[in-house]
């Protein structure tokens, strides 16, 4: 039996093409030593998500998952089927309105879903207002050419250095295209893709930036039809973003 040790790392990160993956899977079904080795590798691979910046899912997602699962349960009532597991206080806090609605069953699930969605949007709005209030620096980027009338303000909050752009009146773009936010180094040589997103047709749209903005000197927004290492699409808005203010002399 020929072992597959050389393939196990790529297998664990899902980087083997289909046929080769199937071959390794078949071997693993019969080989305990390769399985043991894969288990050890998988422990490291399973830790890789811990390197990802934290991100809050929309509150409607929980409701959506539970609603779909509920439809899977034959004859399930519209309220949660059981309380065999203890509910954490924080769940109650998060559930809030939802828990009350489910207990009463007077509110149908669609209504509850809409209420949770609205609550989630309100939470985002409240968070954005709080972040804007605590922002130490901001730069406005006005839309250019066909994108005039749209714009976005890049905010950097003082406490955490967290950055985001609050766009307004974003123009619709082709379904296959995306707005891309770039940060540009002082020498203009490096363009770092900081965010890629589709407009959601609301008047205001918040886009979080996964980079330390203060390390860059310009922010630009392009419309791209493919993900590239450098911008290829039209620059539709941009602004210089200055260095942090100098500390006063002692």
């Amino acid at each position, binding site marked *: 039996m020929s072992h597959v040790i*050389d*393939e196990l*790392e*790529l297998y664990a*990160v*899902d*980087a*083997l093409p289909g046929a080769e993956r199937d071959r390794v899977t078949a071997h693993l079904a019969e080989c305990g030593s390769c399985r043991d080795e894969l*288990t050890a*590798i*998988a*422990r*490291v*691979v*399973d*830790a*890789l*998500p*811990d*390197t*990802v*910046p*934290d*991100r809050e*899912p*929309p509150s409607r*997602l*929980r409701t*959506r*998952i*539970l609603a*779909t*699962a509920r439809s*899977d*349960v034959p004859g*399930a009532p519209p309220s*949660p*089927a*059981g309380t*065999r*597991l203890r*509910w*954490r*206080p*924080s*769940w109650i806090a*998060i559930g809030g309105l939802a828990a009350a609605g489910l207990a009463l069953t007077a509110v149908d699930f669609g209504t509850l879903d809409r209420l949770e969605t609205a609550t989630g949007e309100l939470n985002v709005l409240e968070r954005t207002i709080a972040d804007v209030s605590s922002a130490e620096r901001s730069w406005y980027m006005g839309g250019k050419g066909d994108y005039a009338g749209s714009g976005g303000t890049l905010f950097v909050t003082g406490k*955490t*250095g967290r950055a985001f752009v609050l766009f307004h009146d974003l123009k619709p773009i082709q379904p296959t295209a*995306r707005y891309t936010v770039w*940060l540009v180094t002082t020498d203009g040589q490096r363009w*770092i*893709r*900081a*965010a*890629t997103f*589709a407009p959601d047709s609301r008047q205001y749209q918040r886009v979080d930036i*996964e980079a330390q903005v203060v390390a860059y000197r310009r922010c630009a927004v392009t419309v791209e039809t*493919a*993900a590239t290492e450098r911008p290829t699409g039209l620059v539709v808005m941009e602004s210089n973003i200055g260095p942090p203010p100098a500390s006063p002399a002692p």
Partner: protein
Amino acid sequence: MSEPAQPPDEQVIAALAARDLSALAALYDRYGRIGYALAYRILGESEGAEDVVHDAFLSAWRGAPGYRRERGNVRGWLLSIVHHRAVDILRRKTAFRPAPLEAAEDRPDDADTAGEAVRNLERAGVREALTALPAAQRKTIELAYFGGYTQVELSEIMGVPLGTVKGRMRIGLQKMRRALEADAGSAAGRGEP
């Protein structure tokens, strides 16, 4: 007032297999956030990430009776479903494959509870283990795991033979493994869980 003790993951999975919806809610409350962060990192957009997490938890809901502890813990099992689905979608719309992690600079999260602070420390250890790798090894791991590139694509975009891709991946993950084991050993030495 202290929080009541949480049921262990295996107990949650057993309840899930018994079609207990509150178990699914419990599982989501534990791993929904990191699952969403992972899917978002891979896909680069929230709508797709939301769909991936939805499908992954439904897959866990339907597949819970088939879960086997000896094949890995619940967290790894669930996140591997998220990862597999996100990469699958990414490969089908290759035009928007995310860039390497250059833009996603790691940033410590706000620690507003003691539990969160401990988790952040653990996460910081993993981040340190990854960032301590030589750039070529780190990039190979990131492009494969977060970028969804296959071994042949990695060989092409990095301009190195396939054997080098395999070697960088193997050595990089081995170094991370040793670093994480050392971290776990020193934590145990300090009497931490």
